[in-house]
């Protein structure tokens, strides 16, 4: 493992800017690392070595020409395969998009390029971001660098595994019910879900439009904040994008790094007191609460009575939207087409394409969603779930009148063995028990490593009010300053 691959984004950017190394060297070091370990980790679905080296050369040329470089120039980044990348395969972890090369870049990808970051490739994910382990990827699971027999979380397990395996210092994820935070937690990395609308969804292949939020993944809180700053902000191509500047998350992370949380009031959610969570995870969480108290934070318990209904509401809203969003995958204009032998009708070809192209979990959710939106059932299911969503939002609003942020374990259990939860969808859905309320509310949440349970990472989740993303970075950075970062065993 080269020195360059263990460095943070901040360190790499400084080395490149100072001329102590070049962006090409940094990129090559990471490409070498990928070549060395990714057959075991399987974090990447596509490595774009040529594109990465070209981008790195461009950064080096700009530096040589004396042009100003941004704070992340020359830093490699791995992008979850849910974002459209011009000319670079984008599969969303599904067979139905195998071989599709988008004719356009997602806004976030454009911003990554503009920031001078170097895209290494596209990372593995549960098909259409539906899952918590990457086991639902049509291209096989990624593996957790802490224990290759275990899952790296999901849906963005490829991105978090790439970070933990030192294949990339930065990664992009997307969080619909916890797909950034839960993989962060189980791989000992940092994952932040920004405020909904704080990062553009243009070019993010939709799973659930009202919940999907792209965001940053990194090994340190400050790196995550820098990446958040680079990709965030208003995008006129996304109507749900908030026309306001990103809160100053970088300053907040720096402030938090001093380790002082005096005057910060944090709430522990009563309803997340441990039911359904592993005792080891709850033990680490209690230690973390003590640590936060020592850092000066005031801790109170706070009830959010409707959080109990978050999981069922989510599993109506997200599938409903997905049943509509995924209708466009029909073999007519792009991706897989099955059965077009000249004898079959259009409807048959569409049907065969979808039958062959979607995996079982995606089909399950399309069917649930189709049912929930059907005439005669809409009010009882989708309509009711939206009411629950409003109540959960009220719980958050009321809580934030009393505290600055809420804290919980990110996920009820540490990385589980591959295959342990695939036979019962509900057991898989429980992985997002603590992360889903934030998505329904639309606020920001971050997972930061806080300790180990049986040698496996546990994450602390910090939830903040909408457009107060800076608060969660401050708390996360303070905790990081106290407990440090966590390094997996050598691969």
């Amino acid at each position, binding site marked *: 493992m080269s020195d360059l691959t263990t460095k943070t984004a901040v360190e790499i950017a400084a080395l490149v800017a100072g001329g102590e190394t070049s962006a090409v060297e940094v990129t090559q070091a990471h490409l070498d690392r990928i070549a060395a370990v990714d057959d075991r980790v399987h974090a990447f679905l596509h490595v774009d070595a040529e594109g990465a080296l070209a981008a790195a050369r461009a950064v080096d040329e700009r530096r040589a020409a004396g042009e100003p470089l941004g704070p992340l120039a020359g830093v490699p980044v791995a992008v979850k395969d849910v974002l459209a990348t011009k000319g670079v395969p984008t599969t969303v972890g599904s067979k139905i998009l195998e071989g599709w090369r*988008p*004719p356009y870049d997602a806004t976030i990808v454009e911003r990554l390029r503009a920031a001078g970051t170097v895209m290494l490739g596209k990372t593995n994910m549960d098909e259409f971001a539906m899952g918590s382990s990457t086991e639902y990827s049509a291209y096989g699971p990624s593996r957790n660098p802490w224990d290759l027999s275990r899952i790296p979380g999901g849906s963005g397990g490829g991105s978090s595994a790439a970070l933990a395996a030192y294949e990339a210092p930065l990664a992009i994820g997307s969080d619909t019910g916890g797909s950034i935070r839960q993989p962060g937690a189980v791989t000992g990395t940092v994952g932040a879900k920004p405020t909904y609308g704080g990062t553009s969804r243009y070019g*993010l292949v*939709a799973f659930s439009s009202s919940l999907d939020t792209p965001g940053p993944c990194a090994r340190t809180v400050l790196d995550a904040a820098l990446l958040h700053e680079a990709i965030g902000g208003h995008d006129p191509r996304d*109507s749900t994008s908030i026309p306001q500047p990103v809160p100053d998350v970088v300053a907040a992370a720096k402030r938090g790094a001093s380790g002082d949380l005096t005057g910060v009031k944090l709430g522990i959610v009563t309803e997340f007191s441990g039911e359904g969570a592993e005792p080891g995870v709850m033990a680490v969480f209690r230690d973390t609460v003590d640590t936060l108290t020592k850092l000066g934070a005031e801790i109170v318990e706070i009830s959010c009575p409707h959080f109990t209904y978050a999981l069922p509401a989510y599993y109506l809203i997200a599938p409903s939207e997905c049943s*509509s969003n995924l*209708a466009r995958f029909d073999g007519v204009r792009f991706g897989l087409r099955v059965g077009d032998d000249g004898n079959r009708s259009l409807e048959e070809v569409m049907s065969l394409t979808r039958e062959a192209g979607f995996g079982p979990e995606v089909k399950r959710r399309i069917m649930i969603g189709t049912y929930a*939106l059907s005439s005669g059932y809409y009010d009882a299911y989708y309509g009711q779930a939206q009411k629950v969503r409003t109540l959960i939002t009220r719980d958050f609003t009321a809580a934030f009148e009393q505290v600055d942020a809420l804290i919980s374990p990110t996920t009820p259990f540490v990385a589980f063995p591959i295959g342990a939860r695939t036979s019962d969808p509900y057991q898989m859905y429980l992985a997002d028990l603590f992360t889903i309320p934030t998505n329904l509310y639309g606020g920001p949440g971050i997972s930061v490593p806080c300790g180990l349970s049986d040698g496996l990472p546990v994450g602390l989740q910090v939830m903040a009010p909408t457009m107060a993303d800076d608060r969660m970075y401050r708390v996360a950075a303070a905790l990081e300053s106290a407990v440090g970062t966590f390094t997996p065993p050598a691969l």
Partner: protein
Amino acid sequence: MTTTLPAYDEVVARYEPVIGLETHVELGTRTKMFCGCPTDFGGEPNTRVCPVCLGLPGSLPVANKAAIEATIRIGLALNCSIAEWCRFARKNYFYPDMPKNFQISQYDEPLCVDGYLDVEVNGETVRIGIERVHLEEDTGKTLHVGGATGRIHGATESLVDYNRAGIPLVEIVTKPIPGTGALAPEVARAYVTELRDVIRSLGVSDVRMEEGSLRCDVNTSLNLPGEEWGTRTETKNVNSLRSVERAVRSEMLRQASVLDAGGRITQETRHFHEDTGDTTPGRSKETATDYRYFPEPDLVPLAPDPAWVAELKAALPELPRVHRRRLQEQWGLSDLDMQSVLNAGAVELIEQTVAAGATPAAARKWWLGELSRRANETGRELADIGATPAQVAELQGLVDAGKLNDKLARVVLEGVVAGEGSPTEIMTNRNLEVVSDTGALTAAVDEAIAANAAIADKVRSGKVAAAGALVGAVMKSTQGQADAKTVRELILARLGVEG
């Protein structure tokens, strides 16, 4: 047809019709509803497309403000209330020319609701209630190739053109219209005509039925007097004003014959056939798709600022009814005369002809006379007859200048309609100008006098009325291209007789 249809008079004597109309109008905005692609008609297939209107994975819609403004203006012109807050909704169904396999439309929260449009039928004003006006996106077009008929049956390939996909469409739905009795077909036509005129006056669409920028579905039902409304059918493919009238009438007759035979009307979609004038069943509503409408999560709710709406209302142009009343006064027409202008669909044509320099009387004469006759003969709309108001005004100018007489002008007009060029060009090319050169005319007159010496003597002896025969001879020899009055004067002068 195997059944014999009852007579229309008998049908309306026994049954009461209820009609309703759903009209789709393609807006003439510069760009599409949810992306920046141009909307101009024509263009090679799939050249006016982008990731958004192709529904590529990851793409997102952004609503077109100009389309929202146009819809609000239509709503205001139709006396609707404008929603202070409303949403787009997804209408989910699979169809290959619909890129996302859902259409962004509006469902239970339309932009404009509860208005009316007054139309005149036989001098009576009928108030048509407007249920709603909402905004949605158009689909692409599928072309089936390889078969004999161009239909999907027998085709070997289906090609899809997405140029039209995403063009803003406004849907205008009337409330049910009962109580129009025998006039139902005419009311339907009058409504669509009036609606077209209103929308055209707003300048938001070219509302051309033949190009599909105005499309109409007609709902029809019959009931016995005093009983509940009957089951309705929805007739699609109604592509001209004349067809609107014919479709209602045809469906009334068909339903009456079913009911007379003790049958029941099936709630269904029917297709109107321009050639035969009747309707055939399409898909039945019982097996219709469940569209699974839900609020479009990719778009934020629309909340038009009431001050903006008030501004738009204040800036509405003079609406056609008001405009027509003003024209009637200017043109000095009786109600009956104005009605015949309206019935002929000639208001705008006459107005434009007057604007191009003709007198109202002359403009009306051409459009209601010769051109209406030709329109009726060929089954076309007057506006599509092939002559423009500018050409008609030019023609009248030639008459006024004495270059054409009435008969020659008609010949020239035929040339105009046939597309031979401008009236002046046709007159010159076909050598139709009135012979006004006195030298040539004098020669013709002398010739006629010499050939009809006996008649000439009669005239000389004071029987001036006999000169008519000589005028006729000159007109014949000049093939009608002389001005009869001039000829007569010349003859009398030549014979030394006072006229």
